[in-house]
């Protein structure tokens, strides 16, 4: 289970040395990159910066630019986090990765597209009436995504309960293709554009330098997360969910209906993905049948980085992933003289995953697996 951790006292093999080297190399790169960044912020013409930039002065990042990156990273990360919760919860309870979860997110974004277009035709996707309308849209997106996740569990995964975990895993890939192509069949393969946001949503808050829409994304994500936290930690159903995640047999001994709790888990994960979907639509104003793929993979990465099965970890993993994605190209790679660092954004994300697994195989905040998965 812990590929990267050597049993104490066992002799180091070639693989151990390789992994050690990789760890040292990656951490070394991060440290040097950061130092170089700080150095060129202070003096863009320092010797190292000149050396890495072919003799020319490096460019300084201004504070508004830096702030812009942080806000972007946060809002993107918040969405990754919301999606990651679904991966994490299902993994915690059933011990398999539901690769079709990214499609639940996409379904949420598509629902948002349909709703927003209709509201726009009615002239309600504008001005201050937008506020109740968006709340209603969020609600509908949440419901549709929840329904998708629940039907998915009932049709595709429940019949496989008790079979080896690889089987639902492969099934989930099939479900993912099914949903993608069903959406293509229904709505066509092209990108669908959301109507323009109300003008006040596109404005920048003076002084703060944050766009209103990004703030909205961060706030809605935070509220959703708080709601989920309350649900899982404080309600009876939430306790039952955690009990089922840890030990299904004993949970049923307590009288908990395990099947129903599993459905609840899918439903709650789906709801979070649905919210992320509509937020995505507001932020990027475009959705396509394959929208779920890359954010899904990144959210899955976020879940692993935070520690699978750990809800706080999933959210923190998402935010750190979004942040790393936004900041690392310019704060680590550019100072090292990498050309076109933004192209390496996705590579940064997955390198981060490898690094976390190498240094702390259970994720930043520790994984929470059920009794049978720990064995």
């Amino acid at each position, binding site marked *: 289970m812990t590929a990267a951790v050597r049993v104490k006292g066992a002799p180091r093999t070639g693989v151990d040395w390789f992994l050690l080297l990789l760890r040292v190399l990656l951490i070394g790169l991060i440290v040097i990159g950061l130092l170089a960044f700080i150095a060129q912020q202070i003096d863009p013409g320092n010797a190292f910066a000149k050396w890495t930039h072919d003799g020319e002065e490096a460019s300084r990042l201004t504070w508004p*630019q830096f702030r812009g990156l942080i806000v972007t990273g946060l809002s993107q990360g918040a969405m990754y986090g919301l999606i990651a919760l679904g991966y994490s919860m299902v993994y915690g309870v059933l011990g398999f990765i539901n690769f079709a979860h990214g499609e639940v997110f996409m379904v949420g974004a598509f629902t948002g597209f349909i709703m927003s277009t209709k509201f726009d035709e009615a002239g309600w996707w504008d001005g201050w009436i937008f506020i109740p309308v968006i709340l209603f849209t969020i609600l509908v997106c949440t419901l549709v995504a929840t329904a998708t996740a629940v039907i998915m569990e009932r049709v595709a995964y429940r019949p496989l309960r008790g079979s080896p975990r690889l089987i639902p895993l492969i099934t989930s890939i099939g479900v993912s293709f099914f949903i993608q192509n069903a959406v293509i069949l229904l709505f066509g393969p092209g990108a669908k554009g959301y109507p323009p946001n109300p003008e006040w949503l596109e404005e920048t808050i003076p002084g703060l330098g944050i766009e209103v829409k990004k703030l909205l994304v961060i706030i809605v994500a935070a509220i959703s997360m708080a709601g989920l936290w309350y649900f899982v930690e404080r309600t009876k159903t939430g306790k039952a969910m955690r009990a089922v995640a840890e030990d299904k047999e004993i949970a049923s001994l307590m009288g908990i209906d395990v099947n129903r709790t599993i459905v609840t888990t899918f439903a709650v994960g789906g709801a979070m993905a649905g919210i992320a979907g509509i937020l995505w639509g507001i932020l990027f104003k475009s959705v396509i049948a394959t929208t779920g793929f890359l954010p899904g993979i990144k959210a899955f990465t976020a879940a*692993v980085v935070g520690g699978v099965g750990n809800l706080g970890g999933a959210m923190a993993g998402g935010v750190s992933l979004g942040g790393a*994605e*936004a900041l690392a190209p*310019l704060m680590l790679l550019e100072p090292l003289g990498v050309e076109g660092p933004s192209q390496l954004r996705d*590579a940064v994300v997955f390198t981060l*995953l490898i690094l976390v697994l190498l240094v702390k*195989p259970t994720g930043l905040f520790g994984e929470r697996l059920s009794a049978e998965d720990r064995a």
Partner: protein
Amino acid sequence: MKKLFMILGMFLSLSMVAAACGSTIDEVASDAADAAGDAADAVEDAAEDTADAVEDAVTDDEDAMEEEDAMEEEDAMEEEAMADHLGDGSLGQVVVEAGAEVQIRSLNAITGDVAFLGLPNQRGVEQAVADYGDIKGFGVTSGQGLDDLCSADGGQAAAQQIVADEQIVGVIGTSCSGAATAAAPLISAAGMVMISGSNTSPALTSDQQGNAGPDYHVGYYRTAHNDLFQGAAMAEFVYNELGLTSAAAIHDGDPYTNGLADAFANAFEALGGTVTTVVGVAKEDTDMVPVLTEVAAGSPEALFFPIFQPAGDFVADQAPGVAGLEDTILLAADGLLTDGFMELAQSEGMHFSGPDVRFGANTNESTGVSADEFLATYEANNGEAPSAAFWGHSYDATAMLLDAIDAASFVDGDGHLVIDRQGVRDHLNSIQGYAGIIGTINCDAFGDCGSQKITVIKHDSAADIEASKANVVFEYAPS
């Protein structure tokens, strides 16, 4: 489970690095294409052998004639039908039986995101075939339209299908330069010709200074412009007309966009301007703020992003929100010169470069059909106006190919139409001063036939796209 994560992570990370290094992939792809080309060479050798055998049968007399010297010249003259066509038979012949049709093909991006580009191309081919009529009494068909998928693998797969059919003389396509890179070597090796109406990558032809591009293959032609000029045109417009001295460019790793961004950067620097950044995005990227921040670090006065939708939507939408780019002039190329993009509010105020599409009353000399007549037929057949600008290029390309087939063929004693493959190339190589819908067409030694005139338009209102398309603010014709 941890191991699975590790392996997944490693794999994803590697593939992302690979994807980011777009050029590396292209090399790999073209290597693969070369390998495929080698395979095709073998096929071609075999084909040549059979062709030689046929030829031997036909030309044994000729050999004999040569040996028996000029005395037999009169006999040779008697073989009038044979002598009255272009070509020396070195690439073999296509024999069309009486009653059969001459086979050409359309290979364009007709599905997916870029169908807006490929479908008008294919319809241009079909209309040209219909307008042209018979060749020496033989009908012509473009068969079922093939799909290049706008990708190297799509182009390669379709080309393999084409070269397997020895009846096919030539191909009109591809839509995308990336697909042509993989298709051209196969088509070339099979002795066929390929004329594209919308490939623009300089790598496919030449640098216009006598040096063949890395992906040039004999038998490749195009009626579209060479991006060297579009880049130069945009650079000249920005530097001389707008009077800006610093600029940045964004591409998406595709050979087309990459080549265009580089061409712009080189020309802009040659004029004396400063290029602050040339950087790539991924086609599926949505969050452009990091890359735009990277661009903003150089404080460019102009930003040229010759990419496609949907990535172009995000760049245009997010750029004004990035500190340092609020007042930067946004420019794009013909890839975004589409109704879908120009209808978006964020595209207002942008400039677009592209081929001069004010065809007006230009008439194709082979079919006698004018641009206006073409458009009338097009709208009648399809219920819409063309969604991209290269239908005329494809139309002229098709007419040129059919002219070439006419010039390189003869009807033999059995009533078969015999087409000399080398003759088709000879004819295309010699085209000068051909009047097409797109203007006057002259083919150079590396297959560039198109008019190289580029225009820049200013897009003032998303509500009136047609007005913007006619709002030409700059014209550029290479000297």
